[in-house]
């Protein structure tokens, strides 16, 4: 499980470019920062009000006035800045975030995203996810391919929608899938995983990329 998450995080890190402003969602997406390629310097935004997030503090050295959107204590790097929520979502909604990495309950063929509730069961609320999914320039979903064996990549969402047609890339422990106007395109499979295994774990139709590749699971 943790291995799978790190595989996903490492692959997503390759999608980020030097100088990017990036918002990393809570949980798996946060791991992406650990795998940035050499020479790629990004500015991490956290929507509770900070640019320049720089990982966790040493135990006992936490600043009580400094957390990320997951409620975890953080440190900041030199050149960081703090701001209020209205400013923070101006940054997000205004298209000033180059990429956001978000988790998902479901994604569908049209790039629709469901991430904020399972009616009658799990209601967490959208937090900043609706704004991030609407405003960031590139929306990357980092998620396990299935949930207890059930596909999360569907023809059509079954859960309440969080944002319409916004997802650009889906990265799981099995595959890298791009959302195109024609539908979902399988771009890469994980080393040791077959296309058939990916298809079996995916409800949505998958088009094959002409230059289908593999990605590392080390």
């Amino acid at each position, binding site marked *: 499980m943790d291995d799978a998450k790190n595989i996903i995080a490492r692959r997503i890190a390759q999608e980020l470019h030097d100088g990017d402003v990036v918002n990393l969602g809570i949980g798996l997406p946060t791991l992406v920062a650990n795998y940035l390629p050499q020479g790629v310097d990004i500015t991490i935004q*956290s*929507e*509770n*009000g*900070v640019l320049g997030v720089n990982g966790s503090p040493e135990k006992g050295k936490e*600043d*009580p*006035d*400094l*957390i*990320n*959107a997951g*409620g975890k204590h953080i440190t900041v790097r030199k050149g960081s800045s*703090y*701001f*209020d*929520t*209205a400013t*923070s*979502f101006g940054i*997000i*909604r205004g298209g000033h975030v180059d990429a956001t990495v978000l988790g998902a309950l479901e994604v569908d063929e049209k790039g629709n995203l469901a991430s*904020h*509730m399972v009616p*009658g069961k*799990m*209601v*967490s*609320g*959208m*937090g*900043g*996810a*609706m*704004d991030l999914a*609407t*405003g960031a320039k590139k929306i990357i979903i980092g998620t396990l391919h299935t949930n207890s064996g059930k596909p999360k990549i569907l023809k059509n969402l079954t859960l*309440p*929608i*969080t*944002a*319409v047609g916004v997802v650009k890339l889906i990265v799981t422990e099995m595959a890298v899938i791009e959302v195109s106007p024609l539908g979902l395109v399988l771009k890469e499979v994980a080393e040791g995983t077959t296309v058939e295994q990916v298809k079996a774990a995916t409800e949505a139709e998958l088009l094959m990329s002409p230059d289908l590749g593999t990605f590392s699971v080390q």
Partner: protein
Amino acid sequence: MKNKVINITEAVDRIPDGASIMIAGFLGNGTPHNIIDAILAKGIKNLTIIANDTGITGIGISKLIAAKVVKKVMTSHIGTNPETGKQMMAGTLEVELVPQGTLAERIRSAGAGLGGVLTPTGVGTDVAHGKQTLVLNGKEYLLELPIKADFAILGATIADTFGNSFFNGTTKNFNPVMSTAADTVIVETAKIVEPGELDPNIVMVHGIFVDYIVRSNSNG
């Protein structure tokens, strides 16, 4: 210049049952923890709470939810306090989920005298239900209306006796917008200084918005 410092009991005595209260903070960070405790101690009930989240179990706003003194919350996230979801599904607590950026803009609109804002966030989702939409240059927007409250309670790092307040690090969050959108604004802070001690450049909540200041005796 008016000195607005009062004790915390006097402050919560002004809050009646049934009041709507904006509570600043983000998962307890920048939250007025002592005022929340004083509201609980006094037994004020039937509250409508407007806040980013409903706290983390055992911390901040979650105490009000656990005590069942809240009838409605307008908030962006309840995942860190499962009790909110439980009461919602049991039908004893009304929960209106508002996207975080939209919540900030709606509160800002009320404070800034705007009739509302057009946002692309929430188009095509449940959030759009019952809301007017406008299409401008081929893009669809929701018309989001102002949110006001009877009270706003804020958690500042430093405040002067007139109410000018500074919020360190990520404790700013909803504090500035909420200060503008409530009839009565109460600031809680561990550090009270005289007017003139706070650099006018770092004032994030302006004294003219603040009605009362109370001293906190702990970090909550």
